[in-house]
């Protein structure tokens, strides 16, 4: 292909961060973004909750809205003992949300666009919910795979289906987040690449025509902001649903 071409996946390449010290311990730009997300969350809460005012200021109101949002999600989805799992769900939600949002800025790295990261989070949720199920119900938790009210001759067919659908949970959970973030960033790259291709091939007319992909990219930023919040929400609420399954068995 002649002229400039679009390198859509180059933005996800890992490089070393934090200079020579980071290079010696394989500290990558992905780790930098993770550390940044964690520091931002802790700093936000330290600043927001320092005053503890009855009439909250802006930062305190933001922190309280976040807290209330996840609290009601836990209580509505898991049940009345959902507050036991509140710290886990809250940590997952804020970490993924901040990770998605950091990735929206130019020159920053979206660590949730790597399957290694999302699969780690999803496997943790999967192992944890299974552990909660066995801890709460003992080996009676295996009855989870036997749907109630089903005629006996159907069971040899249904139990494997239930087990497969249970085992596919971490796969769907991780691929959903990873694919959403990757697709968004690839779309940006492709439309930004159109601008370069247009200006390189059509001259002045190309520069004028490049306004169209630029405008589309601006609209995509808004869409990606929605997706960033939505995917964090979906990850958190699916964690809640799995925990509900583990605690209440259907």
């Amino acid at each position: 292909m002649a002229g400039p071409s679009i390198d859509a996946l180059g933005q996800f390449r890992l490089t070393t961060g934090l200079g020579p010290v980071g290079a010696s311990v394989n500290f990558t730009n992905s780790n930098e973004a993770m550390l940044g997300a964690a520091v931002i969350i802790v700093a936000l809460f330290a600043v927001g909750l320092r005053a503890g005012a009855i009439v909250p200021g802006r930062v305190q109101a933001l922190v309280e809205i976040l807290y209330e949002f996840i609290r009601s999600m836990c209580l509505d989805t898991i049940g009345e003992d959902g507050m036991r799992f509140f710290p886990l769900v809250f940590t997952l939600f804020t970490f993924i949300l901040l990770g998605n949002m950091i990735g929206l800025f130019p020159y920053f790295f979206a660590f949730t666009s790597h399957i290694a990261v999302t699969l780690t989070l999803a496997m943790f949720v999967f192992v944890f919910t299974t552990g909660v199920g066995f801890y709460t119900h003992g080996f009676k938790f295996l009855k989870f795979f036997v749907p109630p009210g089903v005629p006996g001759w159907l069971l040899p067919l249904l139990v494997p289906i239930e087990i497969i659908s249970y085992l596919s949970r971490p796969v769907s959970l991780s691929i959903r987040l990873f694919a959403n973030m990757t697709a968004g960033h690839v779309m940006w790259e492709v439309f930004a690449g159109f601008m370069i291709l247009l200006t390189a091939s059509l001259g002045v007319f190309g520069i004028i025509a490049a306004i169209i992909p630029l405008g589309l990219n601006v609209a995509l930023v808004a869409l990606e902001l929605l997706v960033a919040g939505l995917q964090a929400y979906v990850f958190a609420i699916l964690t809640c649903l799995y925990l509900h399954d583990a605690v209440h068995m259907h």
Partner: protein
Amino acid sequence: MDPAQTALLAKDIGGGLATIGVAGAGVGIGNLFGAFVSAVGRNPAARDTMFRDVLLGFALTEAVALYALVIALIILFT
């Protein structure tokens, strides 16, 4: 045409075919919001509570489209 070029061509065709799966997600998202609009028409007061579920359904449906995209990327870039 030599085999290497044929393989590249087949890769591009395969990547294009893999994106057909997005059509299903289009039907799904259309269904979802169509049902949402008609539900809001019947009961406008329940809009806010329904919209949260719609967003969840939208994210789940959109993810199906992205599975197709992942397959296309795997075909194209590996």
